[in-house]
């Protein structure tokens, strides 16, 4: 398959993730959508890595995985903290800060 296909697929995944962030309210699902976007990035990296024929993109993708994991950990920690604080797990309800 041509690399183009991979990239277009990754764009599709990227935008899907973005849509998810925009329309979902559960912080957990939003975190998942962020994962989607990072994964789309990873797909692009790996595809490009294949295209240019060096493996830097792959290493980058692995690093991104680690980072994604860190984000997830912190995000889930926050969710737990919010839950513990008896606040609603709905990002729309967290809008004390505004204006």
């Amino acid at each position, binding site marked *: 398959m041509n690399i183009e296909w991979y990239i277009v697929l990754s764009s599709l995944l990227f935008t899907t993730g973005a849509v998810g962030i925009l329309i979902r309210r559960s912080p957990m699902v939003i975190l998942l959508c962020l994962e989607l976007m990072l994964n789309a990035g990873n797909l692009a990296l790996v595809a490009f890595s294949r295209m240019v024929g060096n493996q830097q993109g792959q290493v980058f993708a692995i690093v991104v995985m680690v980072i994604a994991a860190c984000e997830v950990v912190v995000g889930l920690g926050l969710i737990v903290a919010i839950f513990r604080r008896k606040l609603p797990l709905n990002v729309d309800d*967290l*809008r004390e800060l*505004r204006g």
Partner: protein
Amino acid sequence: MTASSWAWLVLLLPLLGSIVIALGFRALPRKLAGIIGTATIGIAFLCGIGALLCLLGEDAEARHHASSLWTYASAAGLDIKLGIYVDPLSVFMVLVVTGVSTLIHLYSYGYMQSDQGYHRFFSYLNFFVFSMLLLVLAGNFVLLIVGWAFVGFASYALISFWYRRTTATRAGMKAFVINVVGDIGLVLAAFLIFRELGTFDYGPVFAKAPQVFHTNEWTVTAICLLLLVGAFAKSAQLPFHTWLPDAMEGPTPVSSLIHAATMVTAGVYLIARTHVLFELAPTAADVAAFVGLATLLVAGTIALVMTDLKRAIAYSTMSQIGYMIMGVSIGAYSAGLFHLMTHAFFKALLFMAAGSIIAAMANNQNIDDMKGFGKAMRFTSIAMLCGGLALAAFPGTSGFFSKDEILAYATDRGGMYLIFTVFGYLGALLTAVYTFRLIFRVLPGAPCREAQELIDSGHVAHEEPRNPATGELEDADVGFPGAEHHIAEQNWPMRAAMGVLAFLALFGGLVQIPGVDEAITHFLEPTFADSKLAETFPSVGAAWLGLAIGAAISIAGIAVAYWLYILRPETPAALIRRLRPLHSFLVNKWYFDELIDVLIVRPALAVGRFANRTFERFVVDGLVNGTEDVVGGAGRVVRTVQSGFVRSYALLLIAGFAGLALYFLLSSS
């Protein structure tokens, strides 16, 4: 001592007097202040005589001196020195000013004695004399303007001397503002002179002018017209005259000195001083002459109906100045100046007499209320009669010689100038009528209440002084004559002053009898040596013919007045009834005040109100507030977008991303 040194002394003394009195207002005793004031002027007069003698001791051609103390303001090509110019004309003016002032100071010494603002009065009065002397002695146009404005200020200060009278302060303001308009005319004239001639000094200006300008060139005409604005404003000529009657709000000696004898004649002096320019711009000179003529007629008619004693005399002053302006504008310089001098004598005298009577009337100036003062105040009455005769140009009096000389000169020039003769004599008739109208209404007859009281008890104290114009109670603790009033009968300084002036009014004309002595003409000759018009002079015969006509008209006028006010006292009332519209037209002073109000004052105030209420609020502030609103509105938008929804933040981020990406896509090949 040279003439210039004397002249500097002349300038210095009144100033010194003014300052000393002003600074010493707490320390100096009243009398001392009056004495200082009078004495300084008196000495100044003597110094003036010193200057006169110096000048007479020189060759006729050398009788002009420029002298300066220090460079006043000199940069960028302008060179203005603090300098004076001494020549026969200025010395003549110095003598008239200081002479009359000395007498009026003397009069004031008595008249103002019970006034709260005695020191202030003398300080102002001295300052005025200083300013007037500065005006006549100035050696360049800038200093002339300075003197010009100083007298304007002194006039303002003295008009509103009783400063808690709103009528007085308003009158002062009016006088000042109109005079400033005149100043502006002078300033512009000076600019134009500087532009064309590159200097402000009299000597070079008058020397260069004939070489630079063609006759009737627009520049020189413009210069003269601008000078005339100044002259008219100061000399209360149409249409700048409205301030003078109102100026009668000031104490009577002020009216006598400033608004009759000296300051208001500054316009005459100015035209005489700049005759070189006026002769180069005959059109402007004719304009001046016609305005003078118009003023003398208009003022004469108004004086016929005025019931306010001082205002009537003030209109008479305007009218007489009209003669002078006319005279110097048509080239009768020495005649005009001669009339200036005699007018100073008799008009000052008339005012003094009027002041004396007004004091007796407790500041009531309405002649309708006055009667029979001939018996009550004999000295005053005689003085008034002398002044009246001179004013009416009764044969032999000073006014007789001076006024008719002007008209004789007009006749001599012939042609268009005959208009001046004809209407001048008409004016003379009016003069005689209105003068004796006053005299016949005030002096003879059964004494009025105040006059009777004076006869009975010699008492002239009145409580509760009221403002004659508005009738409101005076605020007596401010510089306003208290219960004690002073009249010539009981006060020797007043008497002395009036006596001297009465003598001068009657016999002052004898110095210049056509074909006999003509002392004024000869003395002034060096000043007007460069004049083409002054060379032609009516023959002695023509002059005497003029005098004869004048005498007839004067006597006729007096007769008319006698008939109207003594023989048939009911006629004037009948005339008023018959000619009601004309009467009210005259009583309302030809509606000049109203005209100026509608044309200038109201529009200016309307513009001010518009600026203040509308423009400032809606445009200037609107600009500020509008900007504020726009910025604040943008702030509200930003804060509304900052809704607190994290998803909407993400949306904006992605929207921004999409936008940025679009830009980059578009910029790609």
